């Protein structure tokens, strides 16, 4: 029993990492339809931001706290730049953005290699986050709890922005009917760039979180990117809660399967499960039903 609970907690924390990464994608992929393969490199940028900060700020706790907003800004700026340089020219060809941004991702990885070297680097975690706490016989790692909290905080923040702020209303308006939004006086191009900024910034935050559980390296983003896209695909692009549920479900499924089989077999079973879910809900778990989507 405790084994299952422990394994479930591991799964939830895997899910939290997936969710943090997928959250940015729900904006850039879900709301805007852009398949940004360089999203993984924005994660990397966030992680390296933490690494650089820790060189100048000795306290691991302070540097982590500073890194969170800074990584958001760094990754967000990179995203906005990418949108301005390339992606806005490709809105009519969404599939081609996949290949173009893959090219960008290759270049950013090489840039990281040139700047920080090819080998992985580490950051020190704050003391507070290195220990464990035990609740009812389950061991909960503090860093995993922190990531879980961070993920939930980001979900909450994003929900509030989308629901309550004028910016959120504009984002939803542009998604639902770009032309109408434009003639209603919304600067759609600026909304696009802001959406991309926030989505990419969230990748940066995810990168900071990843420094707590693993090494930092030029290719760290590619390990997560496809899984994160799958989360959005299965969750359905219309609503945040689809991604939240899917991220945790996939995380738990993966980690329980890993326990009973092997990592690689678990991976294959999860993919089969995803194809099965898409048989049942081809547009993902949560969709908006509208007329004539030919």
């Amino acid at each position, binding site marked *: 029993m405790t084994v299952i609970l422990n394994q479930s907690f591991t799964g939830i924390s895997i899910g939290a990492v997936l969710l943090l990464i997928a959250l940015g994608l729900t904006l850039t992929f879900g709301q805007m339809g852009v398949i940004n393969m360089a999203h993984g490199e924005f994660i990397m940028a966030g992680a390296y931001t933490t690494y650089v900060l820790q060189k100048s700020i000795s306290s691991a706790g302070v540097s982590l706290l500073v890194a969170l907003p800074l990584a958001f800004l760094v990754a967000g700026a990179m995203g906005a730049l990418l949108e301005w340089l390339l992606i806005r020219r490709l809105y009519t060809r969404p599939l081609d953005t996949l290949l173009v941004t893959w090219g960008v991702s290759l270049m950013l990885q090489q840039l990281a290699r040139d700047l920080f070297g090819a080998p992985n680097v580490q950051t020190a975690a704050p003391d507070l986050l290195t220990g464990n706490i035990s609740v009812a016989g389950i061991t909960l790692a503090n860093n995993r709890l922190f990531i879980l909290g961070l993920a939930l905080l980001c979900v909450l923040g994003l929900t509030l922005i989308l629901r309550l702020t004028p910016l959120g209303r504009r984002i939803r308006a542009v998604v639902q009917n770009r032309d109408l939004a434009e003639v209603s006086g919304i600067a759609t191009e600026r909304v696009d760039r802001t959406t991309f900024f926030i989505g990419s910034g969230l990748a940066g935050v995810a990168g900071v979180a990843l420094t707590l559980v693993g090494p930092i390296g030029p290719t760290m983003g590619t390990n997560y990117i496809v899984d994160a896209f799958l989360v959005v695909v299965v969750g359905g692009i219309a609503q945040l809660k689809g991604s939240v549920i899917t991220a945790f479900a996939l995380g738990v499924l993966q980690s329980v399967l890993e326990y009973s089989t092997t990592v690689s077999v678990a991976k294959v079973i999860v993919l089969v499960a995803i194809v099965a879910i898409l048989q049942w809900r081809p547009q993902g778990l949560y969709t908006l039903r*509208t007329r*004539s989507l030919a």
Partner: protein
Amino acid sequence: MSGEGLTVRDLRVTFDGFKAVDGVDLDIRPGDLRFLIGPNGAGKTTLVDAVTGLVKATGSVRFGGEELLAKPVHRIARLGIGRTFQTATVFEELTVLQNLDIAAGARRGPLTMLRRRKGIPEAVTKALETTGLTDLRDRPAGVLAHGQKQWLEIGMLLVQDVKLLLLDEPVAGMSHEEREATGELLQRVSEDHTVVVIEHDMDFMRSFARSVSVLHAGKVLSEGSVTEVQADAKVQEVYLGRASEPEPAAVPVPEEA
């Protein structure tokens, strides 16, 4: 042969609580040239969507003795129902001839499919003549004028060997001469097909309709010949806004995105 009739009973389509089609009954006789008119949001296009399997609906739609609801789109098409869309959708990179040849070929076997087209099928030649596109047959459909694209679409329905044509605003955006030509084309087509036309253009309707159904807020408001419908007080209310009672709630869904 004069086409096949369509019988619709208590058809309902709901989008997230909004009743786009709210209990429509329609009887379209074989060989009719029926116009569906009504203000934006009346449910005209949704009705056609439901008949052709594009949206889910409840009720009953019978055609040639078969129930259409719950059949997949391509099966309904194979029963002999063809449609066009508000925006002309032809395969722009293919030539006029290729467009028509594809439309004519849904029943071709795999071996025919894997071979090159040799010569022009008779039905295609006939459709090229009927629509007047013979001289343009080797042009890519993408370079055709707006009206020509609409004619090509109708031609595609003809070679598809449909018995019932459902046309969604075929003359929208056409010049006056193009409208006349299209109307004549429709009259010719309706000699051996059943034709249903969704239209906003009242002059066009008056010139060519054989019968008319007026839809309003998801229901059939009035039905009959052009003169009968025009004389109907309820129709005048809806169209001219001479409402004796308070206007019903504003139409919530625009007809076209």
